[in-house]
């Protein structure tokens, strides 16, 4: 078994995957150090689900390396799996079990099991212990699933689209509990979500996955500080194009905008050379969601 002692919780090197003739990635590379909270963001169809399946060990990649806690993700040993908490899309759980039964079922598998954390979360719902999980709302089930992951006390959590099916209240509750749990320290989280806005408070780093497997990884603080949006005026129909300075151009909104990691003067100088006549007007404030769309585009 290819195994490596490493400071990295997740290590993806030269990863490739194909579905038949369709290539999802050909050379995907990123790492997640221990103790970081990392969000994987990308538009639909870029291969987030495939990557999550590979990381969770349910898909053997066509090529390259994907190590989780130092072991190949599709060949994790049982004791390594005990250190990884998985949250499946849709808050998957054994619906035929009750609140009490599911705790009793999982407890013997995990040496560090913390029953108190599970019941701390679940008892807040005010449901009896014999309440069946299949009869819960998606929000209630998310509490049970999160409680089980916390009780497992994992070193690494892989949370696949935790926001799916949750209303704003349960989403915030989920994040609040997760945040409180992470304050205990030394936990690594790899999370995906369609609600980009939520990531703002939660994550340390962001990984933007683009079609074809191009990856942009950086601390969220750096991204927020460096990624800029400028409105611009252009004479006639001529509009600037995406290039190594201009990451994206949006002509669909009220005012045309362009996005760049470069400061205003550098962008203006670049425009003067590449697209004379185009003038930046003002720098626009952006939420993380605006920035995500600015980087990846609306289509």
């Amino acid at each position, binding site marked *: 078994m290819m195994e490596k002692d490493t400071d990295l919780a997740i290590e993806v090197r030269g990863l490739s995957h194909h579905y038949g003739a369709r290539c999802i990635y050909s050379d995907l590379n990123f790492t997640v150090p221990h103790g970081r909270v990392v969000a994987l963001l990308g538009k639909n169809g870029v291969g987030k689900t495939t990557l999550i399946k590979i990381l969770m060990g349910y898909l053997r990649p066509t090529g390259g390396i994907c190590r989780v806690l130092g072991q190949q993700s599709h060949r994790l040993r049982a004791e390594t799996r005990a250190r990884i908490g998985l949250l499946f899309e849709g808050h*998957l759980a*054994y619906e035929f079990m009750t609140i009490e039964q599911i705790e009793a079922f999982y*407890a013997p598998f995990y040496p560090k099991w913390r029953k108190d954390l599970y019941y701390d979360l679940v008892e807040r719902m005010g449901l009896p212990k014999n309440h069946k999980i299949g009869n819960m709302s998606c929000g209630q089930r998310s509490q049970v699933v999160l409680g089980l992951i916390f009780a497992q006390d994992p070193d690494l959590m892989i949370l696949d689209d935790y926001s799916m099916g949750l209303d704003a209240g349960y989403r915030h509750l989920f994040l609040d509990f997760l945040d409180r749990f992470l304050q205990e320290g030394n936990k690594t989280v790899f999370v995906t979500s369609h609600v980009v806005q939520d990531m703002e408070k939660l994550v340390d780093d962001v990984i933007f996955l683009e079609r074809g497997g191009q990856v942009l990884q950086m601390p969220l603080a750096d991204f927020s500080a460096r990624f800029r949006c400028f409105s611009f005026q252009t004479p006639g129909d001529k509009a600037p194009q995406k290039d190594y300075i201009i990451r994206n151009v949006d002509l669909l909104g009220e005012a045309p905008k362009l996005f760049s990691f470069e400061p205003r003067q550098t962008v203006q100088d670049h425009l003067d050379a590449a697209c004379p006549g185009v003038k930046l007007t003002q720098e626009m404030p952006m939420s993380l969601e605006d920035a995500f769309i600015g980087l990846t585009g609306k289509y």
Partner: protein
Amino acid sequence: MIKSIFLKEWLKLKRVWLLVLLLNLCCMAYLLIVIRHQFQIEHSEMIWYWSFELRRLLYDEIKYIPLLTGLVIAIAQYLPEMINHRFRLSLHLPLQAHLQVLIWIGFGALMGGVIALIDMASLYLIIKGWFPTEAAASALLTAAPWFLAGWVSYFGATLVMVEPHVPQRLVYLLMSLAFLALLYLEKGYQEYDHALPVMILLALLMAPAIILPVHRYRHRS
């Protein structure tokens, strides 16, 4: 951990198992009533003639009940795992996947086996109520392939449900149907006596075969 796995399987099965047990008991009660009725409306000599001269089976009402039992147990056990790919939850448990699934299949086969034993005891006692002990023992041997069909349908349905790839799933389905057809070829008493040990061995070999579809489910690239 093993206790936990048994708990989960029992939670999935308990209601269905009790219902299936009740169905089997009703069928045995029906068989009892039918045979009793025959002895009330016909002379004993005539029934003896049907049974031992014409070799007509008096208890083929129960022929397909074990098959149905195996099928229902497999569905009750594996459908909750397969809906929404919930099987992934089990595969992430810190336990060898094949060991876990072998425990599942052992548990399901055992629960089906318990019902089969109850049926066999009932059949023996019902036949012994009107016929000599030799006829009751013969009934058990005659019905043995039908009871074996219970395990074959259980193992076959398990393989079909767990297998993630359609071509292999079809192979398992055809293989199981062919095996079942082989177990229902009899026209009279104890026709499978010589073949039965081999048939049992072949049926039991279907149990460890579950390891392959589980492996494919885990790494379906």
